């Protein structure tokens, strides 16, 4: 008798718990309800707010939050109040797709900033495009997202997708030029993590590096879920490279750099914007001095417009730093807000403003934290500035900035 009652109670509790929790994504933050006569429009954010890349994702969310707060404080769009709707994609495409579906289901969402990972954006793009919600990515560098899968035959896949950062085609070739010409390194081993971003970066790097005359002595891959890279490092060491080019993110790059140096392979590790984070230096340890990374945009500290962003971010008192993509996210949010300035006043509600916002995006042009912000016919940013950074004394120091707008 007792067992039966216990079973019934347990089942009831379980059913109640399931009903309450539902099957949504892990964390969802939406602003409080709109107040007064002002109508509410929401700017969504999809980024990894938990998991290994959360350092970058939280910086993205906070920067967009800052832009939204500033827009509300200055009453940028009279009669309208802007809110932040942040969703966590954990860096995974399927979780990101759920987050995207949730955002477009909310009628107040009129645009969004995200995602961080190219693989996640690939799954979000069709969802946003079907609902005509503007998507601006601060960090996706995979070229196929705006130029289509065939580089010889560029075709824009989705009219709703824009980005404030340059593509991996430029990033990979900039890295190749830096290693070959500036650093004088002629033999490189490449490693990537088999994800879209890392693989693409290594492909474009290899093309340009070979074109310049360099030699790729080894091309290996690692499994991003694993932490032991000793077998790959031993293989690469046998090929005697003078540098390692890694396509991937800092949770793997840091330990990879540390294990490589510890195994006696004392060559610099160079990566893309995915490893450009203080967490890389923490994970790679004391031997990381000399490691290199490229990132999109000029160093935030050098531009005057960036300084205003940095000061405002500090004053707002966020718990986490703005990380590698803070300035780009801020610009992305402001690009949407600028587009909203033309589309919202004539709209009856947020949902009907979605299509006019997409159209207004192509005309957006202003000076942002990363430089002049404008979009070309593919949705790519017209500002093509890249910077190479080197680890010195436990910090990233800017080494070389190049404007590749002419290429």
């Amino acid at each position: 008798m007792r067992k039966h009652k216990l079973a019934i109670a347990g089942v009831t509790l379980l059913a109640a718990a399931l009903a309450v929790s539902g099957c949504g994504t892990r964390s969802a933050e939406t602003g409080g309800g709109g107040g007064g006569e002002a109508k509410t429009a929401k700017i969504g954010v999809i980024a990894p707010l938990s998991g290994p890349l959360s350092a970058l994702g939280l910086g993205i969310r906070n920067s967009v939050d800052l832009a939204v707060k500033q827009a509300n404080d200055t009453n940028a769009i009279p009669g309208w109040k802007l809110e932040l709707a942040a969703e966590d994609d954990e860096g995974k495409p399927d979780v990101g797709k759920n987050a995207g579906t949730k955002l477009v289901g909310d009628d107040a969402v009129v645009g969004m900033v995200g995602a961080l990972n190219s693989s996640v954006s690939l799954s979000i793009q069709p969802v946003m495009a079907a609902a005509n919600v503007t998507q601006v990515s601060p960090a996706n560098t995979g070229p196929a997202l705006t130029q289509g899968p065939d580089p010889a035959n560029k075709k824009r896949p989705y009219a709703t997708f824009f980005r404030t950062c340059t593509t991996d085609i430029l990033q990979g070739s900039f890295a190749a030029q830096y290693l070959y010409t500036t650093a004088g390194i002629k033999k490189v081993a490449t490693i990537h993590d088999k994800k879209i971003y890392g693989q693409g970066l290594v492909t474009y790097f290899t093309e340009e590096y070979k074109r310049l005359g360099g030699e790729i002595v080894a091309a290996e891959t690692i499994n991003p879920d694993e932490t032991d890279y000793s077998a790959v490092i031993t293989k690469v060491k046998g090929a005697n490279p003078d540098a390692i080019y890694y396509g991937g993110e800092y949770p793997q790059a840091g330990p990879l750099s540390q294990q490589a140096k510890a195994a006696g392979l004392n060559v610099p590790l160079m990566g893309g914007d995915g490893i450009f984070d203080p967490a890389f230096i923490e994970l790679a340890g004391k031997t990381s001095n000399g490691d290199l990374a490229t990132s999109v945009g000029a160093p935030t500290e050098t531009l005057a417009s960036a300084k205003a962003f940095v000061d405002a971010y500090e004053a707002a008192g966020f718990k986490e730093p703005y990380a590698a993509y803070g300035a780009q996210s801020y610009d992305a949010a402001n690009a949407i807000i600028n587009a909203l300035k033309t589309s919202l006043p004539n709209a009856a509600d947020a949902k009907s403003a979605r299509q006019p916002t997409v159209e207004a995006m192509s005309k957006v042009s202003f000076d942002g934290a990363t430089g002049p912000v404008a979009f070309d016919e593919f949705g790519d940013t017209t500002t093509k500035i890249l910077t190479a950074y080197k680890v010195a004394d436990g910090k990233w120091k800017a080494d070389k900035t190049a404007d590749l707008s002419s290429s």
Partner: protein
Amino acid sequence: MEFLQQLVNGLSLGALYALIAVGYTVVYGIIQLINFAHGEVFMIGAFGALSTWLIIGSANDNLSLWLLPVMLLGGAIASVGVALLMERYAYRPLRNAPRLAPLITAIGVSIFLQELVRLFYGEVPGFPDAKRAIPFPQIDYVTGPAINVGGLVIQRAALFTLIALVICSIILFIFINRSRLGRAMQATSQDPDTSRLMGINVDRIIMLAFAIGAALAAVAGLAWGLRYTNIDFRMGFVAGLKAFTAAVLGGIGNIAGAVVGGLVIGVVEAMATAYIPGRFGGSAWKDVWAFVILILVLVFRPQGLLGSRVVDRA
């Protein structure tokens, strides 16, 4: 030379799997439960060691060697505590339930522990946020520049793991075969009902089994942190899966089998990365080859490499 180097790589990785695999095998031998949450016990052992260092040593960034046994003790307390709580509240009530129930419970406990650490570790004052990888203190002498033995590069932390495995195996062997409690464990795993008749407190023995597995997992957690310089709330998942494979490969229920299985899996992974040429080689396929070996062994020798030791429940 590269072969020897890869062998060393494989053995050091395998030693970690072996330490965790013993936990799986000991619990399975006694109560026929695959404790899927054991990977999380390993993770909590690592976090326990980190927390001990944060409380005691981080004030002045102390990395001296005497902190190592203290961290080990701290990690062991954390992992053994979690394992005993798990046994008492999640598995003991299901002792007589059909086999599926404790299995599902184990998966549930695994998810629960992962989320517990992910969400609440950072809430404790002074502890870093566990949502991303946390750098692990690199204790002097057991980390640092690798040791060069005639061209072979051996990581200090890898050497530490291997030595720890040897020491733990010897202690465990002596305990199981030469002490009263050890013989009580053997008796319980052979026939729990008769053991009860002989005056053995079966509940206590089961708790002991969980505690032994957890203590070894704590050693593995500390070794992992030293070797890979960072720990993460999800490190238990993949390591636990590989360790479980190792335990099955060596013969489930057989402690020596778990050790051998762990080392074999580690070596197969290293060798597959280095020596399988072409499309099916490299680190992308190493897990495939590890599981291919497992399947082949189980097809031709289902009881595992060294034979399994499970009670025959008629």
